[in-house]
């Protein structure tokens, strides 16, 4: 019963990593819920507070996009703390393999969801909103279901499960790393499609200027600050181009008017 409740909580919280307000999945809240299910809310609180502080440092690092991995990690940290009587820091250290596995699942799904993108494109062609909704919600359910199954299997004997997962990670973890690299590369396909659709061939300078600005701003500042600075520059360039186009049009109109009057020879 405990395992089923734990799996149900992991299922719901894993989905909260992507939808709604994304507040329940934070380690402090998730660990408290897991602690309550395991009958030891105090340990859940302590592990949650420790993990929350750890995750704060991940938020701004490379693992930003894998942050949703935190639910499975939180679950097994609390399981180990309660079942093996470990203190919060020890449990968090022992369960770290689940952070990698959780991140791997996120990246794996990022590639797997391309199947549903095809469904969504077909739904767009036929204006079928129900199919579009299915293409949106089935991946969500899958992203909750996989961690839930892992939690259900691991809940029975957490310690030996952690050891088994570590061995598996050593052997097959590279596949998850491959999908992590793919998750980094795939947005570039999306960008290339957008470039094609924007017919960017006649404006390569704008593309390279944006890239160069991002290199400077993104190296000096954080990713977010860099993106905001680039957005402001993009807005400024767009506004300048808009106004100069209008001025050019206006000048051309005046010239035409003058030329027209000149032809008649009666400017007065």
């Amino acid at each position: 019963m405990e395992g089923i409740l734990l799996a149900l909580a992991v299922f719901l919280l894993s989905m909260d990593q992507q939808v709604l307000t994304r507040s329940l999945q934070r380690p402090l809240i998730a660990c408290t819920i897991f602690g309550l299910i395991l009958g030891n809310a105090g340990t859940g609180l302590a592990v949650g507070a420790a993990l929350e502080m750890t995750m704060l440092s991940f938020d701004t690092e490379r693992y930003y996009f894998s942050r949703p991995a935190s639910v499975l990690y939180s679950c097994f940290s609390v399981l180990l703390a309660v079942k093996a009587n470990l203190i919060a820091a020890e449990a968090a250290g022992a369960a770290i393999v689940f952070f990698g596995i959780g991140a791997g699942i996120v990246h794996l799904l990022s590639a797997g969801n391309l199947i549903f993108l095809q469904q969504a494109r077909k739904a767009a062609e036929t204006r079928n909103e129900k199919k579009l909704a299915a293409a949106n919600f089935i991946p969500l359910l899958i992203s909750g279901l996989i961690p839930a199954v892992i939690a259900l299997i691991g809940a029975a004997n957490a310690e030996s499960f952690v050891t088994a997962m570590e061995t598996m990670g050593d052997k097959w973890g590279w596949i998850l790393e491959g999908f992590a690299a793919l998750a980094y590369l795939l947005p570039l396909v999306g960008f290339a499609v957008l470039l094609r659709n924007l017919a960017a061939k006649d404006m390569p300078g704008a593309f390279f200027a944006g890239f160069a600005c991002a290199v400077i701003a993104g190296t000096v500042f954080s990713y977010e600050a860099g993106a905001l600075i680039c957005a402001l520059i993009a807005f400024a360039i767009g506004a300048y181009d808009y106004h100069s186009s209008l001025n050019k049009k206006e000048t051309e109109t005046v010239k035409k008017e003058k030329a027209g009057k000149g032809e008649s020879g009666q400017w007065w």
Partner: protein
Amino acid sequence: MVVGIGKYTNKNEAFPLDRKTLNQVFLRSFFADASRNGETGSSTGWCWALMPGLKQIHKNEDDLALAMGHELEYVSAASPVSTFAMGVTLALEQQKSDLETIRSVRTAASAAADAFGRALFSYVVIPVSAIGCCALAANGSMLGVVLYFLVLALLSAGLRYGMLYLGYSKGVRAAESLTRHSEALKHAARLAGIFMLGAMTFLFVRGLEPDLFAQSQYQTVSLAEGLEEVLPGILPLAVIAVVWHMLTKKNRSLLQCFLVLLAISLIGALLGLFGGFFHSPLPLPWINMM
């Protein structure tokens, strides 16, 4: 047929969206990032969230299919502030703006809104509230957990709501005054959109540099640092050039591009080219990971 390419048949401006429709979009926006995929980000959820508005705007069935198709292009809706870009997009759709204008403005607005939202939550809201609430929780008080949930949930929902309405009203006002000069606007929007795409190529894929070190008894050289010296972000730039070439010059399908990238990723991981959390079983013999 390429989904989302073409021109609207009915170019007459649609009636402004009512509050009920915008509220539906607001509620759906909570699920906009449900099916994030590598290629187009949150596009499926984004399109689904906009559907109540799109259906009201495009009564012509072909136009609706076209709108749905181009809303499935790359977009990021991970942060609550992304609803601002949703509002602006709906405003431009309502004005029946040119497709290139809509996709350019959407790209720039969603990237900016996403970055602002992430920065707000990652650097301000989460750290400040987490430190306070964790201190309470460490003393065994449940109040810390409840407070943490309330701060994050209310702020996230409030921002979503406010930003959608702000984006829509600003978008309508801007689009109304700009429609008279649609050609100039289209050119300017394309310029800004392509500029932002160039920026995203570096910013979104930052951190992909191979984490490798060529090592001998005399010297250790970092490949990532070496590439940074040549040109930071050279790898994503090279990849996007190859994919663009495959799509436009070689007429390859998206699936073929995906398979090429999958092969590169798996082989790279097998050889330990990307570093990461797990060890590689076949690391290149002359290169070490540190």
